[in-house]
């Protein structure tokens, strides 16, 4: 055990940091803001493309896919630098982190160059079609139907909670291709262009913001070429769980940074801002102490996972990290909301509360932040589902 990274890893950090100094767009260029999680303003598209071309977009990937074969600790300091400077890796996070990652893992060579690379280079944006009205936590129970008809699929059904779909060029959609086998075995993954006839997107608002991000997506005899099948026919569940694994591998860093971001803002307000009166309240201090411990524990558990993964050991803490991270954010935002009293009800966000290189959701009011944390405890497997997963897969309890 030791407290520091090796000199080689620190050199990697310095190299990335210098690259950011030289390549980060001027603040003046960032006035146009993303409207959803699949809407990338032009200035950000060109920055993301530069990150890809110079091997800094996903450092763990090989150079042809925007990386430099970085090891896990190098990837960790990459994320630390982005977090420290408040830079979002991509304004189309699911397109980059899940859709392109799934195509690179499971797609053909042609699919990788036709879909994954343009998504990574921010030439196109992508959304993820997983949940349905009848398939949330029970994702494998999805019923959107795709029937193979010669060299094309005919798709009928509905997706929901499809973030950014109204701005996305393509969807990676999970569909039922065989209704006569156990539910996990009859699912396939299709890339569907959003301008295909018969595909209708209806954005709807959530409780925290005026611009909608979620969509319902309706499929009415939508024709999808067979070549858009990712992975084998009826092997889509593997793509689905694989894509979530991509999402979860380094996800703890984002939970950790989100929590640290809240703590930084809280510190500022408790020391000399609106919350100064609460700083001496032992109840507030007690809760704050626990949240600071959450922040450290999350970082240390994440580091332990990296160390184990590097040694080739089985890593089983993703559910633990997700549960701890998402609930810690909820606990802290509620604490701050209550500590502020009625002042916490104000939804105004100071104009300089966030960096131009991060999502406009990084610095919401405490009331909105508290509501927004439910996106964390509900999406990506609810907290209840993750408790089941921990009990069954880590602790060995029967299903």
């Amino acid at each position: 055990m030791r407290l520091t990274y090796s000199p080689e890893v620190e050199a990697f950090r310095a190299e990335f940091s210098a690259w950011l100094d030289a390549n980060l767009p001027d603040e003046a260029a960032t006035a146009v803001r993303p409207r959803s999680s699949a809407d990338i303003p032009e200035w950000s598209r060109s920055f993301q493309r530069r990150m890809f071309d110079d091997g800094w977009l996903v450092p763990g990937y090989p150079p042809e896919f925007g990386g430099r074969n970085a090891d896990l600790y190098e990837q960790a300091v990459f994320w630390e630098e982005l977090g420290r400077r408040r830079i979002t890796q991509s304004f189309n996070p699911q397109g980059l982190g899940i859709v392109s990652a799934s195509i690179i893992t499971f797609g053909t060579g042609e699919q990788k160059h036709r879909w994954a690379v343009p998504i990574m280079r921010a030439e196109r944006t992508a959304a993820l079609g997983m949940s349905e009205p009848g398939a949330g936590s029970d994702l494998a129970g999805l019923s959107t139907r795709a029937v193979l008809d010669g060299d094309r699929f005919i798709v009928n059904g509905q997706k929901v909670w499809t973030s950014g779909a109204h701005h996305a060029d393509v969807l990676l959609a999970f569909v039922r291709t065989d209704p006569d086998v156990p539910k996990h075995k009859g699912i396939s993954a299709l890339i569907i262009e959003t301008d295909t006839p018969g595909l209708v997107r209806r954005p709807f608002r959530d409780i925290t913001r005026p611009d909608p991000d979620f969509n319902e997506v309706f499929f009415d005899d939508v024709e999808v070429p067979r070549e858009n099948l990712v992975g084998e026919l009826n092997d889509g569940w593997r793509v689905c769980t694989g894509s979530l694994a991509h999402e979860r591998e380094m996800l703890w860093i984002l939970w950790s940074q989100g929590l640290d971001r809240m703590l930084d803002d809280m510190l500022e307000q408790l020391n000399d801002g609106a919350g100064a009166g609460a700083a001496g309240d032992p109840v507030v201090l007690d809760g704050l102490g626990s949240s600071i411990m959450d922040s450290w524990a999350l970082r240390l558990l994440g580091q332990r996972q990296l160390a184990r993964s590097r040694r080739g050991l089985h890593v089983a803490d993703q559910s633990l990290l997700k549960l701890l991270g998402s609930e810690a954010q909820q606990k802290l935002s509620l604490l701050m909301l209550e500590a502020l009293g009625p002042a916490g009800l104000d939804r105004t966000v100071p104009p300089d509360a966030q960096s131009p290189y991060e999502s406009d959701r990084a610095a919401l009011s405490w009331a909105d932040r508290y509501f927004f944390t439910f996106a964390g405890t509900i999406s990506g497997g609810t907290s209840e589902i993750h408790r089941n997963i921990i009990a069954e897969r880590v602790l060995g309890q029967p299903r």
Partner: protein
Amino acid sequence: MEFEFTEDQLELQRAVRDILDAEAPPELARAVADGESDGAELWGTLAGLEWPAMALPADAGGLGFGWVELAIVLEELGRHAAPGPFVATVTQFAPLVLEAAGPEDAAVLLSDVAAGRTTGTVAVDEGAGTWDPAGVQATTRRDGDHLVLSGTKHYVVDGATADEIAAVVRLDGEVRVVLVPGSSVQPVEVMPIDPGVRHSTVSLDGVRVPADRLLGRGDATRATRRALEESVAAIAAITLGACQQIFDIINAHAKERIQFGVPIGSFQAVKHKLADMYRDIERARVLVYYAALTLAEDHPDRTLAASMAKAAAGEAQRRCVQDGLQLAGGIGYTWEHDLHLFLRRAKVGELHFGSASHHRRRVARLFLQSGAA
């Protein structure tokens, strides 16, 4: 950072576990709980294996192991609810002597500790339950070539049995540490919830010791605080071990206990409690070993890290005792079942050397002062 045990540390963990499985089985903790043993035999065995010397510096006849290694041993002691003077001697007395006397004098004073011939403890708290040296009111004054003490110390672990008590008192207003022979005080032992960890109320009134028993020079507030950081992290490690044992008992029980024709672990109400216990234990585990790392490297974060470890172990304890006892059902409520041996150790760990809430507030104040997470 490399936040996982080295191969050597894993080997040590296995060796310590094997020794304690053999030398401190649940039957020993039970014999202590039944008043049939005082654990002296275990201390003799551990002394023979040079455990007391493990974490002491080489100058004092110690083996110079690091704090991470010590934490591994402490976690296992907690997991076995092991009785005896190891904890107070090695993690309370020795650090205070080292910090207050300085390395040269401490080497002489601690050589008998390293050899397992002397046991010790500290007398700091005076009833507040926070072990804060700033709150010390007990005094000493010079009387020729002697010191005369006055005041009452609370929650002195092993206060009725330790050979030496390092008492934190005021001399001319300054916080100082005086070594008091255990035989010179009249301790009143408190009826303990865990007979394996006894504490006493110790009156220092009229105790006379030679003046050379005054350790170091100048105010010892900082020395005491630094030493207590080690004591606090140590109790956190022990509490973590006790929680792990409670959890292991309950996790196995949930797989074996059949009701309504199925193991009770198949019910979500049970699963979710187990998942929460596991989460709190792992959270405490990484914070305990982070504290151990900062102590091993004398890193500036050690003050914060020790308090985080103590508070996290306290939170884990709260959940494991509460839900562990509940999920065990009626059988865990019986004297015959081993569960209570570990519940007791975990509860003691929460309340000795500052509660979880005390340490959480301390963490928050350090955070607000430092200005960064």
